[in-house]
């Protein structure tokens, strides 16, 4: 009983590096993390779409988070991963430079994101979580997965 209570108040954040920025998202939104890199390029796709991937018979669109967040095309490093998240009607993979720990975050310590965080557009973050030595930007998955055309409509 007590444990479930704890679970409800503490958010578990899966953290990962996008470029040099440490980001995190609610672990419950993550379906899996893999290192499949056999992507098929899709000509004419939006620039931030890296390609498509066969995830056990499902076609998964892979989004390069760096580009999506406007961090340019820095080196991917040698341990890139796909974070597969659930989106309405499909799965989408977010390509990150590397993954980090799972952080138990106290919701009270999550602060609203500054408009401009490490050069990343503030709109993609719901907040910032401060650990002892680091800041974790909490990704707004909805915003990240939103189509750019929709963005325009929204604005």
């Amino acid at each position: 009983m007590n444990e479930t209570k704890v679970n409800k108040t503490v958010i578990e954040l899966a953290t990962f590096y996008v470029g040099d920025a440490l980001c995190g998202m609610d672990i419950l939104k993550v379906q899996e993390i893999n290192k499949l890199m056999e992507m098929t390029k899709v000509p004419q796709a939006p620039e931030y779409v890296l390609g498509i991937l066969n995830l056990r018979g499902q076609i998964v669109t892979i989004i390069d988070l760096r580009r999506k967040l406007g961090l340019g095309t820095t080196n991917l490093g040698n341990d890139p991963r796909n974070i597969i998240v659930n989106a309405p009607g499909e799965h989408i993979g977010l390509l990150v430079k590397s993954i980090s720990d799972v952080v138990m975050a106290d919701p009270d310590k999550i602060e609203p994101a500054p408009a401009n965080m490490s050069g990343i557009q503030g709109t993609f973050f719901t907040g910032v979580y401060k650990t002892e030595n680091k800041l974790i930007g909490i990704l707004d998955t909805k915003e990240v997965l939103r189509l750019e055309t929709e963005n325009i409509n929204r604005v």
Partner: protein
Amino acid sequence: MSFEDDEILQGFIEESLEHLADIENDLLAIEEGGANIDVELVNKVFRAAHSIKGGAGFMGLSVIQDLAHAAENVLGLIRSEKLIPTPDIVNALLLASDQLQQLIEDVANSNSADISANVTVLNQIYESGESPKSAEKKPRQAKESPPAPEVTSEPAATAEEEPADKGQHVPEESSTPVIEESAPSPEPEPVFEPEPDPEPEPEIDTLNVVQDKSPAKRSTPKAETSIRVTVSLLDQLMNLAGELVLSRNQLLQTITSGDVRNAEAVGQRIDLVTSELQEAIMLTRMQPIGNVFNKFPRVVRDLSKKLGKQIDLTIVGKDVELDKTIIEAINDPLTHLVRNSVDHGVETPDIRKSKGKDAKGLIVLKAFHAAGQVVIEISDDGRGIDGDRIADTAVKKGLITQEQAKVMSEKERINLILLPGFSTAEKITDVSGRGVGMDVVKTNLDQLGGSIEIESEVGRGSTISIKLPLTLAIIPCQIIMTGGERYAIPQVNLEELLRIPASRIKDRVERVGDAEVVRLRGNLLPLIRMSDVFDIERTYYDYQEESFKPDRRENVADRRSKSTPLFREKDTQPEPEQEKTGEEQRSQNRRRSPSSALNIVVVSTGAMKYGLIVDRLHDSEEIVIKPLGRHLQQCQGYAGATIMGDGRIALILDVSSIARMAGLTSLEGSERANELAEAAKDAITKTRDKQALLTFSSSPQEHFGVPLNQVERVEKIKYNDVEEVGGRRVMQYRGGSLPLVSIDEVAMVQPLPDQEDLLVIVFHLAGKDIGLLATGPIDAIEISADIDEITLQQTGIMGSAIIGGKTTMLVDIFEIVQTVNPQWFEDQAVGTSYDEDAPVPTILIVEDSNFFRNQVKGYMEEAGFNVIEAEDGVDAWQMLEEFFAEIAMVVTDIEMPNMDGFELTEKIKTHPTYSALPVIALTTLAADEDIARGKRVGVNEYHIKLDKERLMESVHRYAKESMPSGR
């Protein structure tokens, strides 16, 4: 209103829609039955209406409930045989069921819908049925729609007087006006808690709109989101899934134990279970075609009433099952075809009678399996399709030519109806013939991977057969590769695969404007380079290194040369220098390797056909279509994706959107390409000189040609006619001796064979006749082919050309005679001796063809003149301005690009200082008018091309004349 439980609501909707689907056909059956009421049937409809009412009441859908209730009341009367189901009444019930369907499809807004019109009509019927004398009610309706039919009281009338009340049907079917007028009636029946109608007018409008739209709306039902599957099938699936799990466990065990033999068995088992599972799952997608067919009785009924026709519809094979997606997609084309049959096929009763047919037409809708496909046939016994008329119309509309029409079979003519832009309807009705027609049907079917075929006999009727695949989920595809990625092209779109070897690209691929086309069996096929459309880096597959390399060519023709037939003459010159760079050098080697072959996938979609240039062609495979994610929906050109055997993904290409992306629009694109190509062809033949040649042989393997205008005549002789006198071969000819030569005396060619029949080609040179011995076959042809003056050039042979697929050597008769009889030309040589001190005269040769220019230049230089060359009039003018002081005369071709010979001559002759220059025109155009024109602009002499002797004679003459002038 809030719907607490979506599932219950969804259940209600599905159930109700099912009921409604049945109601429609049952009502039609009831109508047919007339007075002989089938109580069982009426009961069924009654129960259906009742359960809709009940469900709606439970869900709080009061409007639906009311309407169902009103319908139920009327049905109750019919059931208790108090009311005879006339077409009128059935119509009202049908309209009510339509309305119900709409309401149920849009449940959320159903309570705010206005149904008073339907309810009023039903209530009137109900009341009239309640009162014993139903006829009493009729006058009331009559008031509202004056020519109201009096059918109700006499049940027999409906059945028997069908032809007679055709006229009455017209006003009657428009029970809409009846409703219209009754709708705003201020006293809606109080019994059925009327909706408050503060604004009656807009309601009428909406009502009308709804009713008008209803047929159209029905034809595009909402895509179903749920599907009903029999429990037994589900059980089967469950079993198979269980099997699969068991097999997996076995497999895992085997893998751990490393038992190879067992692994094989397990593998087989999994294979079996998987295929069974696949089949079973496919079955869940299968639906009876009856789902589509069922609506046609109504369509035919309504339409035939409207058109005053009598038509029976027979449906066969309702149980034939098709994939759900196909069932949904086939709806529109089928509706169109059935409506066509009713509108254009079946005649009106009087016409039918006059032709000795039954007044009632028959349309048969039939579905059956054949050869792994489902065939749907729509046949009628109407007037049939007149192939000749179709062909006439097609010719008139410019879709085909008269000649094409002539050679077409009757069946082909009939199938012309499928061409875009074809509509035979003589009068345009609102039923069909709106300019869109069968081509849309065909396009729709093409998209489904189906085909359509029409058979017809004038006066007897027509049959349209549609063939459809059972499913769309698995489709055969051609796998291709471009830019290192694989793509799949549905086999349905695939026409053929074309591979043009590197050496043939020049001949086959041409540029028309900025479009590339390929000649395919006489037709021009527009080409689309896949890498361009998709903006992929161009690559080519290197077979030696087995890898893809970037490709730098600008266009296809660049593979071998920049020149195309259009620009050949101009571009061939600078090319060699350009290509000396290292990079190009490599590409030149590549040109000869297999990797520069063009791989073209010829695809078609609807009426459009084009070639897609890809890097590599792979196998054909059966693939499963998977949708692309949301982020990729905006990308054009893809129909989805599929997973290949190696686990990687290949994108499936959408052939029609690729055409759009490349700017090809249906027929226009290819037609335009055709037109342009024709123009280009004209331009080619215009800019290039045609040369008339006499072709002959002198040995079985070798073929020769001489310019026809040099030939005096051709004699057939026997071998014995040739006499060897004084070391020379001669023959008797016109009372004298004709010296004979053969090519092998001079040139390194095969000797003349020993044969009885020989030919002598007589030339007239230097005032004498000479005969060239040859053998047949001889032929006179006009060529505009390229003349190669290098490869086979030798003494007596000026070059070669490919004529009729054979390498033909062009004989230089002057050289031959000069070699054999040098003394013949000595007179002229004497005549050409100039003063040693005087400068050698310079001649400007203007000629666009390399071959002729070199030829003439050769003659001149041989005779000791200096030569300046120019490629065309413009070039020549520049030369003239630069070197005027040296130039003694101009020898010019007539047919040239940019500035032709006439123009050049005119320019020279009207110029104050140049006008004294003699101009000799060389031409293949020997027509009188050309000569006249030449004279008019000031040409001094006119010579037929390559009549060396006469040309040189006049050149010498003019050269001498110009000498004294001191140039």
